[in-house]
C-alpha cells in the first residue's frame, strides 16, 4: 500500500468518525475511547515489530489516567494535562524499559504483566490516596480556559483524540521505515547481527518501548477526560490483554490497523453487550477466532488484500 493511499484512507476514516459522531451522538463516547485505545495499540504494534508482546501496557494507560485525575486538582487545563500525563508515562516507561528490554518473548511479556499488576495493587490498596477500587472522579477541567464539559466538551476531547491519532500514526509510519524502525524489525529476525553491526538491540528496543509508553499515556489521558472517572481496572491485566487483542484484530501490517481494530472492538462490544447482555465476551472471542482463522493479517490485512485484488 502506497503512502498516499494510506494517508487518504486515514483522512477518510477521520471524516467518517466525525460524521458518525455527529449523526449518532452516543457514538461520540464510543469513538473517542476507540481512538484512545488505538493510540495505545499503536505502541503495542511498535513492540510487535520487534517480535515482542507486552501484556502490561495498561500500566502506562492507568498511570496517565491517574496523572490527569490528580493533576487536574492542581492544574485543571486539559492542554497541559494530556502532554504532562504522556510525558510522565514516558519517563516511567524509560525506567521500567531499562530493565525489561533485557528480556525477550515470554519473559518480556510476563515481566510487563507483573509490573502492571504491582501498580494495580498499589492503586487498589492505598485507599487514603486513590480511593481503592472506587476510583477517583475527575474535578472540572478546562480547555484553553473554557470549561471542558457538555456536548462541546465531548467534541473537544474527540478532536484531541483524532489529532493525536493522526499525528502519532503518521510519525510511527515514518519511523517504521527509518533505519531505527528497520533495525527494530531486525530484532525479531536476527538480533545478534545488530550487535555485530555495532548497533545495540537493547537501545533500539528501549526507544520503541518509551515511544509505546508515551502513546499509551496519551491514550490514558484521553480515556480519563472522556470517562471522567478513573479506577484501578484501567491497569488490570485484562486491559493489557485487550490492547494485544485489538492489535491482532486490526492487523500489524499498517499503522491504520490499530485504529480499525479498536473501532471494530468497541463497536462489537457495544452491540454485543446490547444484544447478548451477559455473553458479549463470547461474541468478541468468536470474532477474534474468526479473524485468526480466516484473516491472519487482521482487518487491515483483509483491506490490503482486497485492494491488491482490485
Amino acid at each position: 500500500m502506497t503512502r498516499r493511499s494510506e494517508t487518504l484512507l486515514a483522512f477518510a476514516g477521520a471524516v467518517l468518525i466525525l460524521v458518525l459522531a455527529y449523526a449518532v451522538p452516543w457514538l461520540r463516547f464510543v469513538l473517542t475511547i476507540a481512538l484512545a485505545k488505538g493510540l495505545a495499540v499503536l505502541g503495542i504494534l511498535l513492540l510487535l515489530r520487534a517480535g515482542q508482546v507486552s501484556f502490561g501496557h495498561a500500566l502506562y494507560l492507568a498511570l496517565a489516567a491517574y496523572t490527569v485525575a490528580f493533576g487536574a486538582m492542581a492544574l485543571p487545563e486539559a492542554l497541559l494535562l494530556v502532554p504532562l500525563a504522556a510525558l510522565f508515562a514516558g519517563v516511567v516507561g524509560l525506567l521500567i524499559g531499562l530493565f525489561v528490554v533485557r528480556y525477550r518473548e515470554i519473559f518480556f511479556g510476563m515481566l510487563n504483566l507483573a509490573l502492571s499488576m504491582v501498580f494495580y495493587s498499589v492503586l487498589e490498596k492505598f485507599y487514603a490516596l486513590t480511593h481503592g477500587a472506587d476510583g477517583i472522579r475527575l474535578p472540572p477541567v478546562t480547555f484553553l480556559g473554557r470549561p471542558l464539559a457538555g456536548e462541546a466538551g465531548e467534541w473537544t476531547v474527540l478532536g484531541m483524540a483524532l489529532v493525536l491519532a493522526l499525528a502519532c500514526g503518521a510519525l510511527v509510519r515514518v519511523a517504521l521505515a527509518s533505519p531505527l524502525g528497520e533495525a527494530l524489525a531486525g530484532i525479531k529476525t536476527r538480533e545478534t547481527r545488530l550487535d555485530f553491526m555495532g548497533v545495540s538491540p537493547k537501545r533500539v528496543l528501549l526507544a520503541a518501548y518509551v515511544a509505546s509508553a508515551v502513546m499509551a499515556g496519551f491514550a490514558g489521558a484521553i480515556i480519563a477526560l472522556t470517562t471522567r472517572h478513573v479506577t484501578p481496572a484501567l491497569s488490570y491485566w485484562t486491559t493489557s490483554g485487550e490492547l494485544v487483542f485489538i492489535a491482532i484484530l486490526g492487523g500489524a501490517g499498517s499503522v491504520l490497523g490499530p485504529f480499525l481494530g479498536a473501532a471494530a472492538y468497541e463497536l462489537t462490544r457495544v452491540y454485543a453487550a446490547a444484544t447478548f447482555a451477559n455473553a458479549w465476551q463470547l461474541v468478541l472471542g468468536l470474532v477474534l477466532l474468526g479473524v485468526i482463522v480466516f484473516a491472519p493479517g487482521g482487518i487491515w490485512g483483509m483491506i490490503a488484500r482486497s485492494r491488491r485484488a482490485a
Partner: protein
Amino acid sequence: MTALLQARDLRLAFGGLKAADGIDLDVEAGEFLAIIGPNGAGKTTFINMTTGYLKPQGGSIAFEGRPILGLSPRRIVGLGVARSFQLPQLFTEHTVLQNVALAVAAREGVWSVLNPLLRPRFRDEAAELIERFGLTRIAEVRADALNEGARKLVDIAMAVALRPRLLLMDEPTSGVAAAEKMGIVETLVRVLREARVTAVFVEHDMEVVGRFADRVAVWGQGKIAALGPPSRILNDPEVQRTVIGIAPTGGAHAAA
C-alpha cells in the same frame, strides 16, 4: 611497525577441550591470512574471541595497538573489525537491498527516525555494493528466499558495508556451489582489495587458499601448528597428512 592485529597467548578451554591453547598471531595490514585446520581445532573460536563474542581465559588481543579484550562485539565493530558468519546471519524478513542498507545505516548511525532507510544515499551505496558482489539480480528478494551461496555473499556484503579495516570471515565459501566458487571468491577478493580491507578467513578449500591467501596459518588442537606462505605450508607433508587429508605422495596442491 606493529601488526594490525596482535594476539598473544590466547587460552580458552570448554571443559576439557582446549579450543585455544596459547595462540600467538600477528595479522599485518593489507594481507589476506587463511586459517586452515581440522574441525574442532579452534578456528571459529579464534574469530569469536577477536570479535568479542567469546572471552578468552587468558592472553591479550590488540587491534592497531589498542587492547580489545573484554570489549563488547559492538565496541569492537566500532573500532573497525567486522565479521561474517559460517551460518549467514541475515534479517530474514528484509530484502537483500534492505539488509545491506541497514548495515550502511548502522555504520552511519542508526539513530535517525524521520528519514527512510532506503534514502537515496544509503540505497545507492547499498546497490553499488550489491552490484560489486554480483547480486543485483536478487536485490529485491527477501533474505529467507535465497540459496545458501547467495546468503553467504549477502552476509559478507553486510560486513564489508561497515567499511572495516579488518574483516574476519568464517568459511566464506562453504555452501557455495562448486562451479561458482572460484568466480565468487575472485569477486570477493577484488572487492576487498579495492576497499583495502585486511582479511582473515577460515577456509577448507585448499585451491581457494592457494590462490588467494598471502599467508596460511594451520590450526591444530588450539595451537598454531604452522604459519607461512601457501607455497610452503600447503606442500608441507605434515600439513598435507593432518589437514588436507592426502597421502604425502607429492600431490602439488598449491598453485603457487
